[in-house]
């Protein structure tokens, strides 16, 4: 009985906070838009029963998504931005994680703290701060012009570059922490063994350190990529109108157009796209757990 309660709690949690909202969204995505409050005509009515619903069922909102190029371009662009920024975050994050794992034992808690510290400030405020840094009259341009490296201010804000900077900055801890965890567990004698068997430092890194931190790399990449695909705040604040991302489209569809059914359809398709990396991520975690037994 107690075991049942213990198992039931997380499932109830999932049911109440994920599954039920998802079905509401799914239901809205299958209904028709209307000028009403809420702005859709429910397709499903308890009074008429399930058969009436099935008879009336159409996927017009989903079909609409395929007809307008905006949507698939936005999905594609989101995936592209997510992939590139994940790669960039990995490039920046791995050396940091490596340095942390190699740092003297007594420094590590401090370094860990420094990685987590940005979370103490609101995410939104930090993104606004980047606007102040990257704008034409921002600190970065002021500094570069003061040093004389450039004479004209660089246009960074409202370009994809600003979005990448914002994403890498925001999601860096999610990349660093799993990689650090993997590297921290790495037995130093493995590197020594590799060197003892004839590896140079670089070979030992490539043949031992990288493969053994792979679960951390994969976990970090998924932790960054999955939320970035649906990211809304960073592209809308730093990316300007030129950056097309599905999160922004979704927001506009929902709040500007008040087309809840189409917005819901966009959300459902986004979820389907995300299911693939999430399943892969889960499999990676499971494989890692098996390997550790």
């Amino acid at each position, binding site marked *: 009985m107690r075991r049942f309660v213990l198992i039931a709690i997380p499932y109830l949690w999932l049911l109440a906070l994920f599954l039920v909202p998802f079905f509401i969204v799914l239901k809205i995505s299958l209904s028709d838009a209307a000028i009403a409050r809420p702005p859709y005509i429910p397709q499903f009515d308890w009074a008429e029963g399930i058969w009436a619903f099935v008879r009336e069922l159409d996927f017009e909102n989903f079909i609409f998504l395929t007809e307008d190029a905006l949507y698939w371009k936005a999905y594609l662009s989101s995936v592209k931005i997510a992939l590139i920024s994940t790669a960039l975050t990995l490039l920046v994050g791995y050396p940091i994680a490596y340095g942390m794992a190699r740092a003297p034992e007594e420094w590590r808690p401090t370094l860990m703290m420094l990685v987590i510290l940005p979370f103490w400030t609101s995410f939104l405020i930090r993104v606004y701060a980047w606007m102040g840094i990257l704008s034409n009259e921002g600190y970065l341009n002021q500094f570069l012009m003061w040093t004389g490296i450039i004479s004209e201010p660089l246009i960074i804000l409202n370009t994809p570059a600003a979005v990448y900077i914002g994403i890498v900055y925001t999601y860096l801890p999610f990349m660093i922490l799993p990689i650090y965890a993997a590297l921290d567990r790495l037995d130093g004698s493995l590197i020594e*063994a*590799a060197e003892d*068997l*004839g590896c140079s430092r670089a070979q030992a890194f490539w043949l031992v350190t990288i493969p053994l931190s792979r679960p951390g790399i994969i976990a970090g990449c998924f932790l960054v990529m999955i939320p970035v695909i649906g990211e809304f705040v960073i592209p809308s604040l730093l990316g300007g109108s030129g950056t097309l991302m599905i999160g922004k489209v979704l927001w506009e569809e929902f709040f500007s157009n008040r087309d809840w059914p189409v917005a819901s359809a966009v959300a459902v398709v986004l979820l389907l796209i995300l299911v693939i990396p999430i399943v892969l991520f889960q499999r990676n975690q499971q494989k890692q757990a098996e390997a550790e037994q």
Partner: protein
Amino acid sequence: MIQFRNVTKRFGQFTAIDDLSIDIFEREFFALLGPSGCGKTTMMRMLAGFETPTEGVILLSGQDIDPIPPNKRAVNMMFQSYALFPHLSVWENIAFGLKRAKMPKQDLKERVEEMLRLTRLEQFAHRKPHQISGGQRQRVALARSLAKAPKLLLLDEPLGALDKKLRQDTQFELMDIQEKTGTTFVIVTHDQEEAMTVASRVAVMDHGRIVQADTPAKIYETPNSVYVADFIGDVNIIEGRATPNDGETYRIDWAEGQEPLTATSAHPFEKGQACHFAIRPEKVTISSERPADAANAVQGKVHDIAYLGNLSTYHVELANGTIMKAQSANTRRISRRSYTWEDPVWLSWTATAGVLLAD
């Protein structure tokens, strides 16, 4: 083959190796034995190239190895934790060093297979290290470190993680493999029994120095110091003052009102010099009557009996309160044991049974 010449290694203020010189010979099975922190692992890591001496030189076949990085040394190491690569199979682990040496594929395959046969791991070749037992892992580690046919193999507490029975079997296996391959083995251990079993020569270390380096038998029978006598095996140590008799025999006055002991020593003692007389428990005979012809005999009563199955160790309390241990083989069933607690007994030994050690 290996020569340590006045090697000193310091870590900050701490001196791990203190002005140490020793030669290790070709095809030798050499054991470094000592308590933890005595510097034995540091010595091994210097041979492997992970540490460099602060002072002095280490010569391998006459060549100073200090400038040679670990990946270029003809020395391989078997790590205490085995350090098997968890992402590679047993086969790939063994092949790892050979691949780095760019061995042709066919030779590599043969060599790995040979190593697998040597360590009886053929059927586990494609398992990952976490899928095999501790004893098998230990053999993989050994195969991997032997694969490159090093001139010198270093073994860092190789059997520490194994249970006793497996450890004993593996000790003999190690000796077999050492004989078959003809490689020089240097083993680091804190287990004196292990060192005695496998090694042809044992160096007992303490505080960064080698106290004695000799064959296991000599280390055991004629330790050169109280430290070695006490570290290796069980021993009774009696403090006293030596007085030379004729020849190499000495009289030892060790307690008020007790008969002096007689012992021989190749090492000369002056009259009245403080000495320690060390004798192994198995060389002390226990009897209920005073033996007529014994050179040394002391009386006491049985204080405790440790029954070890094949042996019994009697802790005998002498008149002045000293506890002396005597060991005898249990050739008869325990119910027919001749002595029991509180029984008065005589302990006796010959003049040559023990060793006389200076302070």
